[in-house]
């Protein structure tokens, strides 16, 4: 699964996710990536793209939950991301990660697997890339 979240110069947020699903899947199984609110979501304050065990992200409505905590609970974006990805989903038996970006430009990259391909770039144009937990 791959994804991106962006904040433009006008303060608009967007999120996108694309995936090949999971190896050896059957029955037309669909994961969370194309389901708005589960693997992909954006509003005026928060944008999310997820990557993980899709069934858990769907049941948790993970991407929307993160943004709802920010919008309604006034929770800090990083705390909201950590709560859903690294506490709620593992507690239910799932795992994975997400990228989360706020309208103020702050972002979070929580994950609870051995690694997550990830990167970010700011207006200076310097790309930062990491793969493993210790990167």
């Amino acid at each position, binding site marked *: *699964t*791959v*994804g*991106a*979240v*962006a*904040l*433009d*110069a006008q303060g608009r*947020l*967007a999120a*996108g*996710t*694309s*995936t*090949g*699903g*999971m*190896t*050896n*899947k*059957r029955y037309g199984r*669909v*994961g969370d990536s*194309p*389901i*708005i609110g589960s*693997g*992909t979501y*954006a*509003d*005026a304050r*928060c*944008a999310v*793209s997820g*990557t*993980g065990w899709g069934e858990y992200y769907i049941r948790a409505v993970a991407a929307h939950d993160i943004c709802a905590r920010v919008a309604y609970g006034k929770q800090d974006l990083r705390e909201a991301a950590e709560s859903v990805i690294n506490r709620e989903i593992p507690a239910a038996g*799932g*795992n994975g*990660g*997400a*990228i989360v*970006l706020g309208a103020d430009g702050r*972002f979070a*990259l929580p*994950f609870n*697997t*051995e*690694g997550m*391909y990830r*990167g*970010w*770039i*700011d*207006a200076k*144009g310097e*790309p930062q*890339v990491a*793969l*493993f937990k210790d990167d």
Partner: protein
Amino acid sequence: VRPVLVIHGGAGVIRAGMDRAEEDAARAALAQALRAGQAELAAGKPALDAVVAAITVLEDAPMFNAGRGAVFTHDGKNELDAALMDGSGRRAGAIAGVHRVKNPIVLARAVMDKSRHVMMVGDGAEAFAREQGLPLVDPSYFRTEKRWQQLQKALKEEAAGQAHADVETAKHFG
């Protein structure tokens, strides 16, 4: 506002399953995706354009589970899903279960921009892609030998009643 772009290429990465050349290729592809998206933002384009530009690069890179390099289904097919959402207007587009659309994220954008719907699946989504003039490819375009071997390993494990041995053939990760 200072434009920002953040990307991911999946949470199924493990050090043991990757050699140095693969790691370097993954890092280069991620950097390329970041530059492609940032170029859109630097040109004053909307966040949506940056997201599509970055994801298109990752879909074209064979080391990630999306577009070319996607994992195989039980039936030996590459089956692709994608979604896009605009935070400023709550607009969204999504597609699932397509086999011929070169860049699924571009089709998700077309669903959002060119239809009254939010989600299209399967043959209907591909018919819409054709109507919109989006690039379609032979399904073999998406195939990589590494992903094919992952499927063979998963099938053997399944036939033997074994748990999947590692994260690359685990039930839930591509």
